[in-house]
């Protein structure tokens, strides 16, 4: 007998004493919890996102569509970056104001090559206000997971308010489980030494989030 059959057989025998239960899954779990906490306006939700991002030491910047290229150029310059990783679908105009050398996200790049790049810039799939989380799903404007992992400086652009949800339940509704997802809440951190939080172990030590609102004109 294969171990598969062995284990499944053990499971069935283990449950032999249990009352038969044909409650369908949909009815088996009462979901009395909230879809979101509080009753915030759209502006307040964006505000909460900014607060919670900052609370976990992400550096938050706010601008509008017209100011985005300038903001990004400023961040790269301030970080002293001479190279920046760029996913294939990143809107060209985001980099219109910077001279920083672009490095493409390619299949062939080795981890060592990625380790030589100063910064990475991506969009995101969505952001969660209640937890201060940005989620990447590997779409063309976000690239492969490793490009936001190996370089030490990550700039992530969130379109507000469209990409902002309030809560974890709302986020999961909008995300596609077949894509590899990375949820990021603040820069990499550890509390392993006397539970003292230290930012920056293996992931990017600096996380800058740019909240970009549509320009009003």
């Amino acid at each position, binding site marked *: 007998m294969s*171990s598969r059959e*062995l*284990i*499944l057989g*053990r*499971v*069935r*025998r*283990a*449950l032999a*004493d*249990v009352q038969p*239960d044909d409650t369908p*899954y949909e009815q088996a*779990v*009462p*979901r*009395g*919890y*909230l879809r979101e*906490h509080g009753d915030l306006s759209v502006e307040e939700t964006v505000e909460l996102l900014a607060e919670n991002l900052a609370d*976990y030491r992400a550096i938050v910047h706010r601008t509008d569509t017209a100011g985005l290229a300038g903001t990004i150029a400023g961040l790269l310059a301030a970080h002293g970056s001479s190279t920046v990783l760029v996913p294939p679908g990143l809107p060209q105009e985001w980099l219109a104001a910077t001279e920083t050398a672009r490095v493409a996200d390619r*299949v062939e790049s*080795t*981890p*060592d090559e990625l*380790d030589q790049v100063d910064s990475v810039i991506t969009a995101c799939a969505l952001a969660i206000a209640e*937890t*201060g989380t940005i989620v990447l799903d*590997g779409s063309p404007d976000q690239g*492969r*997971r*490793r490009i936001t*992992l*190996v370089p030490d400086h990550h700039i992530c652009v969130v379109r507000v308010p469209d990409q902002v949800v309030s809560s974890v*339940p709302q986020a*999961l509704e909008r995300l596609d*489980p077949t*894509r*590899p*997802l*990375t*949820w*990021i*809440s603040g*820069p*990499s*951190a*550890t*509390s*392993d*030494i*006397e*539970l*003292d939080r*230290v930012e*920056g*172990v*293996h*992931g990017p030590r600096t996380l800058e989030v740019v909240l970009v609102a549509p320009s009003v004109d």
Partner: protein
Amino acid sequence: MSGTFVGMPAFPKAAHEAVHNTTLRGNLRHATHTIRGKRAKAVMEMSDWAELRDAGKRIKDHTLRHLDRYLVQLEESVTAAGGTVHWAADADEANRIVTYLVKATGESEVVKVKSMATQEIGLNEALEAEDIHAYETDLAELIVQLGKDRPSHILVPAIHRNRGEIRDIFAREMSEWGRPAPEGLTDSPAELAEAARLHLREKFLRAKVGVSGANFMVADTGTLVVVESEGNGRMCLTLPETLISVVGIEKIVPTWQDLEVFLQTLPRSSTAERMNPYTSTWTGTTDSETADGPSTFHLVLIDNGRTDTLADEVGRQALRCIRCSACLNVCPVYERAGGHAYGSVYPGPIGAILSPQLRGTASEIDASLPYASSLCGACYEVCPVAIDIPEVLVHLRERVAQGGPATEKGNKVVLKPAKGHAAERAAMRAARWALSHPGALRTGQRLASRTRRLHPRTLPGPGKAWSASRDLPAVPAEPFRDWWQRTNGGRTNGGKQEGTK
């Protein structure tokens, strides 16, 4: 479960030694109290905590009730997404499978994300025996591995080490394993973290095989989830060409939507954060065009005592555990005794009910674990999936003291009472050390019992004695065994043991 630490003394003895190690106690006390307060705050932010906790419990119960069906569904989903599923009945089989898979890649080293399951089966040792080096990449695991030590906490395995000790370990051992610690390393946590970053980075960048566990597996989509802080998990999950995930069969949830419960309750219960820094989810492998992450993915599902646990009507609730470690941080016995005293990779209250079920109660340490508690109930209060740990402890005590039906390796057996009432002796010895500081135990117990609603239960046997406010336990006028028989394990006749106050 092959994970009994060799030569491990039974709980009371190990705990007695730990209680007298003042550095250890200082480290532990500081750490558990810090996180305890933070957790309470993080939970208070959620007005629907009770509903989330109830939903978490029900999702897990429903899954366990139909575990065969969900396992088959998971296998189909993972396979359809390009992964390969393997089944391991016990630790040896799991180790053989992983060793075989690593060898098939032609590699002789793997990078690992912290995983309870691989510790439980002793994977690192099994790989080492075949000349495959497994590098732990979680900072705390690295401290443990370099210090040739054992983990003592589920989430913070090096919780028993202070910064000075960690500095010494890094300075002494890093050069043995790869990049040495920087010259003049101090004991500041930031510098220590930086030393670990540099030491591990070269390993990540060249790694071809990653080994992980998983916090959740979603049956309907075939998605695996890893929740972490440092980014070492992301490194292991995305840079290597081959990923091998070793996961207990109880880690399933039926649907993607179910994650909305656990991704809210787990971070707050474990690190007291609204959300942990990184959560990764992946579903099989990506196509060659996307080429994001490992091109080969193996999932090794392990039983190793879980189906035996599932067969126990009272004990099966332990399989709901999401390993958040909140129960450790509130446990007065854990705080005093430390994680090592539990003689297993699962320390604290959850370890006290899980290890004796996964491994059986044949060894002295496993027979004594159900007594490693004052039954104060604080663990149940904080548990995000509402595992009634005291109820299972009492049930297991009964099994140890009286014997009775149990399941071992899938076979129904009838256990004999522990020889010479070893359990009773163990309990009394346990009571003796725990009472060296009775004040905290008593307070914890009162606080907890005030908020407990379910199971109006008086404390049987030594649990009762442990709360007495004196330095030595009262020797009960009525022997424990007689009392146990008379009261049906403390369930009838008020369960009050004569001679105790």
